[in-house]
């Protein structure tokens, strides 16, 4: 019982921190979330990438989807069905609360906030930094996709490596042609299943 409460508190505090320090939409939350979730051992990098796909193919904001899922997984693995519910509740509450409180304050002092040179100055540094941080997060995703057993030369002798590379290249071309993410995810899944069984790839 005590353990459950401690785990929920740690989940809440971590996602509160993630919510408080992420600026911008979409994947802006990925770098900090990746670092925290891997640091706590709540999920593996592979599970995070799998879940980015699930998050992209279900409605709702990326940040909320990720928080709900990570919360459900971490507590649920130890405490069963109600662990799923409690874990996802506290993680989601944590990630939502900072925005909620800050916007309530900003809404009252909007004019002052809008013209604040301090806010504008800080944002001029944050915006490019977030791009660099996401690029670093994507690099680490790439490592996991291409070198699932850790970076090494032996990977070049595996069939999986070349299939991943080819799939990624094709999907990147489709993505730049503005094909919808859900179509990209579904066709990657279909290709994975077909090639996996067809070539009897190791899993």
């Amino acid at each position: 019982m005590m353990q459950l409460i401690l785990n929920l508190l740690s989940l809440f505090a971590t996602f509160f921190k993630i919510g408080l320090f992420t600026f911008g939409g979409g994947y802006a939350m990925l770098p900090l979330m990746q670092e925290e979730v891997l640091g706590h051992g709540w999920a593996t990098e592979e599970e995070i990438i799998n879940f980015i796909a699930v998050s992209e193919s279900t409605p709702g904001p990326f940040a909320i989807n990720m928080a709900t899922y990570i919360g459900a997984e971490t507590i649920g693995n130890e405490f069963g069905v109600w662990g799923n519910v409690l874990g996802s509740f506290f993680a989601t509450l944590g990630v939502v609360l900072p925005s909620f409180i800050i916007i309530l304050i900003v809404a009252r002092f909007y004019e002052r906030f809008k013209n604040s040179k301090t806010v504008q100055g800080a944002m001029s540094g944050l915006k490019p930094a977030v791009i660099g941080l996401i690029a670093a997060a994507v690099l680490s995703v790439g490592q996991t996709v291409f070198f699932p057993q850790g970076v090494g030369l032996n990977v070049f002798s595996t069939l999986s490596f070349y299939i991943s590379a080819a799939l990624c290249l094709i999907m990147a071309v489709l993505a730049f042609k503005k094909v919808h993410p859900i179509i990209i995810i579904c066709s990657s899944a279909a290709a994975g299943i077909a090639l996996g069984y067809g070539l009897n790839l190791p899993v």
Partner: protein
Amino acid sequence: MEEKNSRLKRILTLFITFFKIGAFTFGGGYAMIPLIQREVVENKKWITDDDILEVIAIAESTPGPIAINSATFIGYKVAGFWGSFFATLGVVLPSFVIILAISFVLREFQHLKAVKYAFFGIRAGVLALLLKSVWTMYKKCPKKVFAYALLGLAFVSVAVLDLPVLLVIICCAVAGLINSIIVRRRAK
């Protein structure tokens, strides 16, 4: 009494409207803006197009997901604190319920070979989506030496030097602040 009823009704409508927005937008964030615009500006006429621009500007310069920021802000404008509470609850609830359900399903099936193969393919697809997203963001980066320098520094700090993300975020905000003060001083 009359006024209290109409406020309750507004709060309920806010909840339903944002529930719909949460249930029907994929990818969240900016994908939500057109839907918010149609529901809240054109159908309900609660706020104007100018307000929407205001919402985007605020959502961009405050922490947290854009969807939450805009739901809270619009809810507050329309019906005060409880308006923002129920708008936010509405936008979060669909994701929450769907993902919770998926978490059970995934746990049951993730050990199947077919599911593992599917995710093997999916991971390559996700990497492609992420690469495209980084490229799009990179093209929106302000074309200034200062911005490019911070972008590169942030990347190297985390990817090569393994520094904590939070530290990099705070340092870059401070750097932006100092830079803006220097630029203003020079202008004077």
